[in-house]
């Protein structure tokens, strides 16, 4: 695409970190139980725990910034571009005229970090929901309003 995608709000990394932390906690708990069982059996302990801590560190420390780097977003007069994906890279283009309606959502973590997720509904089946996470609240509202005026103006 000729146009360059802008990165999302930096605070989105924190959101990703918190979400990863929840997943990491689950991994830690599961491995903690595993560790306890291993200990009872008289097996060498520390293996499951080490693996769990490595996974947790990777999830919380390393993965979020890398995933963040691959998120990109751009809005011009006709289309909304959104790119994401670290291993499989996905670049989605939604013509603004095809947007059926728009939601602005904010989960508890997002609220704490001051970012919001924009959800575009289209009539399609694969992309009936196109989400743009990690926009600053004000920016998300601005984008929503721009899309709304574009929808109203479009003859569709």
């Amino acid at each position, binding site marked *: *695409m*000729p146009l360059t995608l802008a990165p999302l709000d930096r605070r989105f990394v924190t959101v990703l970190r918190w979400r990863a932390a929840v997943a990491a906690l689950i991994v830690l708990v599961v491995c903690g139980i595993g560790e306890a069982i291993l200990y009872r059996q008289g097996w060498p302990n520390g293996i499951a725990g080490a693996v769990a801590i490595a996974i947790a560190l990777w999830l919380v420390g390393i993965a979020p910034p890398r995933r963040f780097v691959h998120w990109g977003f751009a809005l011009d007069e*006709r*289309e909304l571009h959104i790119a994401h*994906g670290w*291993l*499989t*890279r*996905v*670049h*989605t*283009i*939604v*013509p603004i005229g*095809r947007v059926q309606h728009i939601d602005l959502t904010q989960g508890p973590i997002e609220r704490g970090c001051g970012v919001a997720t924009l959800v575009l509904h*289209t*009539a*399609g*089946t*694969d*992309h009936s929901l*196109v989400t743009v996470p990690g926009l600053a609240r004000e920016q998300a509202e601005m984008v929503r309003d721009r899309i709304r005026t574009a929808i109203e103006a479009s003859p569709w």
Partner: protein
Amino acid sequence: MNEGPRRLHPGTIVLRIVTKAPQQVAGLVALAAATSRSGTEVMFGIVAALMIGAGLFTWIRWRSFTYTIADGALTIADGVLQRKRRSIPFERIQDVSIDQKLLARPFGLARVRIETGGGEADEATLDSVTLSEAARLRAVLRGAVPSVAVDAAAEGPARDVVFAMSPRRVLTMGMFGFSLVWVGLLFAGLNQVGDVIGWNWIDVRDWAGVARQEAMALATPLFAAMAAVVAVLVGAISGVLRTLLVEHGFRLEREGDRLRRVRGLATRTEIVLSLRRVQLALIERGMVSGRLGWAGLRLQTLGGSDDACGRQSVAPFAREDEVARVLAAAGYAPFDPLPLRPVAFGHVLRTGLVRGGLPLIGVIVAMVFLPLAGLALLLVPIPVVLAVLARRRHRYAIVGDTLQVTRGVLSKQVWIVPLARIQAVSVRRSVLQRLLGLATVHVDTAGAKGLGRPNIVDVAIDDAERLAATLLR
């Protein structure tokens, strides 16, 4: 155009009792068995009371169901204890389909389904009304005529038959409908039934008339050959029967900007497609029948419809020129494969690696344990050849204002998607694709879930980006 509340046809009561009878008979038998000790009179009394009760209940349900056409909306009131009213404005009605089940046909009744495009739960069903009332309802709900002009609706605008299938054509189609799935089902079914009626394959072998000991040597290959013949016969016959049941009397008519399709032997279904709501055309050629010049055409429409996944068969078994005629009726240009170009050469590498690579690893691992498994290496060229063919057959181009995509080695598909119907486009690159400099362009359209999307797999990255941009211009 207001009118008072109407009820369904009273014949519905009989129809419902008859359709529910099989379920109730089991219950009645159980009940009769339970009460038989207290004497036949009591037993018959209870059974009769229950039957009358069921009849009465059906009647009350029928009485409580009304539909009203007023103020530009269809209002359906339902429920005995808990009343429920639902109002569907005419402009929200996407499609009105009529079908006639086998039982409903002697009564001259039909079921009307009103589709609102909001999924299954939002659908309204009027089960059942007379055929003429069904036709009137459809005319009124589509806003074609004011509700007063009842007779005008029956005649309707001029129709011309776009495509029809003679019984001979249906039979030919049935021949190609040969499917081993049905054979498998039948054999599985026989196994199940065999346990119940004490008839199984061992007995069949005994019935062959040879003493068991001698039979073992002879009968096993004989039996296998017999089973194969039976399987082929069953497959062919079931294919013909199934096709006959569904496609008998297939007729596609065009009236104004709508296509009307009637088909079916036992259950006659009639659906109407609004051409404005057609999203794409899909031409399919079977493995054998396609090579003999037969093709099927389906149109994908928005919202719910009779078929699964919103793709309506409008010419299930047709020659090239007939497909072109139906396409023309739907406002599409005939398909011309010439301007289409194949996807990148990397497609061969990637399909070869993905399809052939994993089995290859499996074979090599097996060879470690069992050297004979090395014979399977002889099969390796198959995925390679398939990969080469897959790239030759997977072509795409933007022709006029449509995107055209072909795909498929054994059975072939052609998609024709008007650019205006593309809802979103996304370019995906997996790890392997990035190594090979490829990308897949996903084309999202409205109205159909599941497989069979007009996606373009493995084009060069630059081409993919240019294509994505052009698709949405």
